[in-house]
């Protein structure tokens, strides 16, 4: 168990940068009075951010990942979250075996 100056500096900087993102969003928003357009924009953030993470991850890695992503969406229309995650993992393993 050792602490290295270079590592600790970088760890501190990554910590501060990440905290700045979380705090910045909260503090700036707390002071802003929003009209209907800005309200619609902020209400769209959840679906916009989630889709911007999920779509490239599912659709730019290859055919097995795309099939697994589609399977997770279809199952997810009815099934709970744990099943969706399991289906995503199991399908990607099966498809990589079949197609890889």
């Amino acid at each position: 168990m050792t602490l290295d100056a270079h590592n600790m500096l970088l760890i501190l900087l990554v910590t501060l940068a990440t905290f700045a993102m979380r705090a910045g969003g909260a503090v700036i928003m707390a002071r802003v009075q929003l009209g209907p357009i800005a309200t619609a924009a902020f209400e769209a953030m959840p679906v916009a951010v989630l889709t911007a993470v999920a779509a490239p991850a599912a659709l730019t890695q290859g055919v097995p990942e795309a099939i697994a992503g589609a399977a997770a969406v279809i199952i997810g229309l009815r099934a709970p979250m744990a099943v969706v995650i399991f289906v995503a993992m199991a399908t990607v393993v099966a498809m990589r075996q079949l197609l890889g």
Partner: protein
Amino acid sequence: MTTAKQEFFDGFRLALPILVAPISFSFIVGAASVQQGLSPLEATLMSAGVFAGGGQMLAFEVWHEPQAWLLVMLAAISINVRFALQAASVRRKINHFSVLERWLTIATLTDPAWGMSEVRHLTRQVTFPFIAGITVPIYLIWVLGTLVGALLGNLIEDPARYGLDFAFVGIFIALALPFWKRSGAVPVALASGSAAIACKLAGFGALYVFLGAMAGVLVAAFMAWRRTRQAPSP
């Protein structure tokens, strides 16, 4: 009446099925940390302080570059800028929290805590115990899992073999589904998804999440602007 205890366990029950993701992800982050030359103690401190796996993994890509001090911050900002959007949205739903509760919520905000709070807010007020029920188990697992992963080192050589690398995608799909079903969400999702894919393929690095989300938000703003311009129906 809903007690704080019930609220905590409501959150905990929601978090339970997704804990497989932080378990596997924290092992991988711990193993990746020691491969970059961090000690197990440093790896654990990093997970406790940053508490954001994507940013930690991305920072390791530039850990030994000449301007590492600048590059790790850019890496963390580009992938974690989504937290600014999420924190802004969550902050609007926690005005009734005490100041300490607000800062604890914001400082430890994660994708699941944010996503589940958004879903909760569709039907009822979000409480601090509810968020704690999600965040506390994830934080403990995250920190301890990093330590275990770092100590075991390279034991998990090929996470893709077990589909663990894809658990992350399953979580985001599961979190997004309730929103995709809502009216007006489809154009937003199509815009943010296609823009994010285009930006990723075009080589924008981790910024593709931010750029894609912005495209979706712009579409939502444009749709609202069109509504405000339409004359009220007679």
